[in-house]
């Protein structure tokens, strides 16, 4: 421990201004300041100026905080950072409600079998980036999808690979209802898993890469499935294989 009567330093003077001195040290410094009136004038002026600066800057603390810094709001925004929200939601709504299917594919050759799954999945992935349902409702979606699709559809758990189920959507395609499950990882990278029943064609089909998007497509047990990613997702093939294995195990 340093003796309380060691020579007074510049640091002591700063600590005197900031009232950080221990009582013993403070006595020593006060005694030294009594003997050095110039130094006392200096530190007294510093302290006065510090107090004035505090008072001047106090004004800023009293300004109202803008709504953009509302923590509750900021947290909500974080929850959906893969959003292109409103537009995509309305596109999906149009896809899923009442338009009878086919309007998107009108004037085009409607593909059959697995090719049609690919086309639908592409459309839905593009449109659906922001339209998710709350996480808690995923089980409900799976149940609803299961009923609508006429068979159980359970989203595979990909959390071991770092992807968490963030939501999902029930959509209508040219070939009937389909389920879309959306996963994201900690960095916001997004994958969607599109699932719909196959009807008589390509009931089981080996996995192959998709043609126009980073994605893989396959059919198993009469379900056409595609996994599509943002360009940022690596090892998508491994993920798709895992999803296929998990879904085979679940049924």
């Amino acid at each position, binding site marked *: 421990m340093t003796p309380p009567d060691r020579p007074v330093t*510049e*640091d002591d*003077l*700063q*600590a005197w*201004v*900031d009232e*950080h001195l221990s009582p013993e040290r403070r006595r020593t410094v006060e005694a030294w300041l009594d003997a050095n009136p110039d130094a006392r004038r*200096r530190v007294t*002026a*510093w302290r006065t*100026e*510090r107090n*004035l*600066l*505090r*008072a*001047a*800057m106090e*004004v*800023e*603390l*009293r*300004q109202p*905080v*803008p709504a*953009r*810094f*509302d*923590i*509750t709001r*900021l*947290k909500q925004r*974080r929850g959906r950072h893969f959003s292109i929200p409103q537009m995509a939601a309305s596109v999906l709504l149009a896809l899923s409600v009442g338009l009878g299917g086919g309007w998107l594919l009108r004037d085009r050759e409607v593909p059959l079998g697995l090719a049609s799954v690919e086309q639908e999945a592409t459309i839905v992935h593009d449109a659906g980036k922001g339209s998710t349902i709350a996480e808690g409702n995923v089980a409900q979606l799976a149940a609803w999808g299961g009923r609508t699709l006429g068979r159980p559809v359970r989203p595979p758990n990909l959390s071991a690979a770092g992807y968490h189920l963030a939501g999902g959507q029930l959509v209508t395609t040219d070939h009937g209802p389909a389920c879309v499950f959306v996963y994201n990882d900690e960095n916001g990278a997004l994958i969607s898993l599109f699932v719909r029943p196959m009807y008589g064609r390509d009931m089981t089909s080996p996995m192959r890469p998709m043609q126009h998007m980073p994605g893989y497509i396959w059919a198993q047990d009469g379900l056409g499935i595609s996994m599509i990613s943002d360009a940022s997702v690596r090892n998508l093939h491994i993920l798709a294989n895992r999803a296929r294995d998990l879904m085979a195990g679940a049924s």
Partner: protein
Amino acid sequence: MSDGDDIRLQRAIPALRRYARVLTHDPHQADDLVQDCLERALTRMHQVRGRPDLRPWLFTIAFRLNVSHWRRLRHLMPLTEIAPEPVQDATQIPHLEWKEVAGAFERLSDDHRQVLLLVGVERLEYGTVAEILGVPVGTVMSRLSRARTALHRLIEHEERPMLRRVK
């Protein structure tokens, strides 16, 4: 994150905005920095669970973000756009002395303004300030000494023309 964490974070925002203004010289840039800082903070709240005073932690994030990103941006802009602005609402401060000190403060270097704010205004410990700025305590002390000397000199020099003008 618990409600308590939310509340403590929310309460620290005025101080964070004030520090961001000292860092950036510009209220708009400052608020953009605050936004970045809060978004970063929200992903790391687990690091400070239960810590009563979040200011040092937030100031550290703001300081690092400012160094890595904002300063680079600022250098791309013409100098006139980053001229120091007077402290917000300085005109509404009734006391002439406050204005003088605030005006002199704005003319100090970035390093000096930061250390005067963190030590003098925010009343943080020297060691805490050293951690925020990523420098040894000795550097904080010498900056503090030079900053106080510089501030005092500016205020003294400002007094004279003022007196002459008043007559």
